[in-house]
């Protein structure tokens, strides 16, 4: 009973906060609701016994991605009436994409029901929880069978990151930067010379 209660609690809050993400007026509130949605999905994963995925969800999405969202959203200077105008303009295409997604989700759902059990029995591929914790199970699958795909996904992310940096980086020659190596390597003789000045002659 407690299990069902927890599930409905997490599920309700997830759906509610997902709705609030798109309907709240203040973008910072939207990000906060997004975080709440992430949290409750993590709770759902824990109920499924997938504690590793739950923790990774919190670390990656809540701890890093949502922080960056927040960072950006807080610095935006947003005119809300301007946003409303955009809402009218983008409603048709947004609605279309939403409909397509909904249709696909429904198709997946129905297709699953029609085709019967997938492959033989998915549970046979997964070792029992008593033999192997799911962290180990994920690791042993990800780094053996799917090692290539995993590495490729990592490389794609790396390329995307480098691309973003290259596109947005501009070299500013007028900015003075500290070079700590230069500072540490600087010796007494580099900065000044000691000149013996003879009386009456000056440095001429």
């Amino acid at each position: 009973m407690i299990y069902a209660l927890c599930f409905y609690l997490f599920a309700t809050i997830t759906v509610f906060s997902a709705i609030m993400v798109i309907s709240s007026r203040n973008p910072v509130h939207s990000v906060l609701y997004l975080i709440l949605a992430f949290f409750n999905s993590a709770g759902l994963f824990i109920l499924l016994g997938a504690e590793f995925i739950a923790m990774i969800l919190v670390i990656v999405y809540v701890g890093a991605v949502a922080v960056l969202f927040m960072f950006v959203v807080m610095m935006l200077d947003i005119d809300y009436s301007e946003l409303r105008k955009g809402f009218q303009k983008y409603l048709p295409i947004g609605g279309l994409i939403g409909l397509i997604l909904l249709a696909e989700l429904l198709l997946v759902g129905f297709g699953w029901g029609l085709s019967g059990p997938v492959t033989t029995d998915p549970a046979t591929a997964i070792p029992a929880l008593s033999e192997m914790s799911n962290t180990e199970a994920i690791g042993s699958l990800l780094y053996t069978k799917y090692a290539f795909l995993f590495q490729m996904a990592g490389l794609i992310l790396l390329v995307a990151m480098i691309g973003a940096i290259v596109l947005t980086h501009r070299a500013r020659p007028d900015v003075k930067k500290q070079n700590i190596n230069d500072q540490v390597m600087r010796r007494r003789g580099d900065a000044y010379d000691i000149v013996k000045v003879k009386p009456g002659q000056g440095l001429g």
Partner: protein
Amino acid sequence: MADLLVEFFQWGFGVTLVPWLAIILGIVAGVLAIVLPLLLIVAMSVYMDRKVWAAMQMRRGPNVVGPWGLMQSFADGLKLFLKETIIPASANKFIFLLAPALTFILALVGWAVIPFDAGVVLADLNVGILYIFAISSLGVYGIILSGWASNSRYAFLGALRSSAQMVSYEVSMGFVLVTVLMCVGSLNLSDIVMAQKDTFLGVNGYWFTPLFPMMIIFFISALAETNRPPFDLPEAEAEIVAGYQVEYSSMAFALFFLGEYANIILMCAMTSILFLGGWLPPFDWEPLYLIPGWIWFFGKIFFMFFVFAWVKATVPRYRYDQLMRLGWKVFLPISLLWVVLTGLFLLLTDKIPA
């Protein structure tokens, strides 16, 4: 815990508890057994911190309230409690009050998975270390929300600095955790402690192995994560007058303050669990095991806390670009290299844990 409670109620009041009530009561009792002593420790650690700085600056520190000034923290707490909670007119009230509560709660919930002794842990999670990492990565929200909700430039600058700083140092901290995990082969904190028994020459703990540089990086990242000097840029009082805390008064401020110290002690506990051997005595020598494990554990936390105070008393604050350089250009490559080296070492010496 639950069985014990059922027995206790039967013996004391002649009432048989319903199982689910016993479980809930057991959890609540466990939480209280951790949180109440923790709050006392937090109060005393503030006192110790001030005493250590005072000693290092040749002052006497708090010495008026109570014997040797021991009651100073309680006096400060009472003073804060009696002050007025001021909410700025242009602040976002809900988030403004949510932020300090969040900081405080997050600093407390991390303790749920800390093993104080063999088997003495509230929640023996399989992914304990990820839990701690997740909780500590959430700590940034308390600061960033308070900075934004205050609607003040100083607070906002502090929040921006802090979010960038904490996200940056989390990365290298994550790699440090990975090196330890590769040596242990488990994410469970109790397993991590037990794996450190007699690591090398009878010394308990990873600090006496080639993981020592990782311990230094973890410690410095912990300083940055908890906004302690030399990384206290989010509250740099000389430039942005206490940063994200500037609009807070009374208990809202106290929650930030206590949360910060609870976080520091949590980080000390993590350092002792990951590198100093947790509840194990420093050397694998039979008579040392006669002393209970929790005493060793708290002794290690005490030592790490002293080092925290020591750093604060002696090191000047970093400049922002230096902070970013240290995080991304020094710690990240070193810890990444160490992950590769540790993996190679384990592979070549055939020591990969099963």
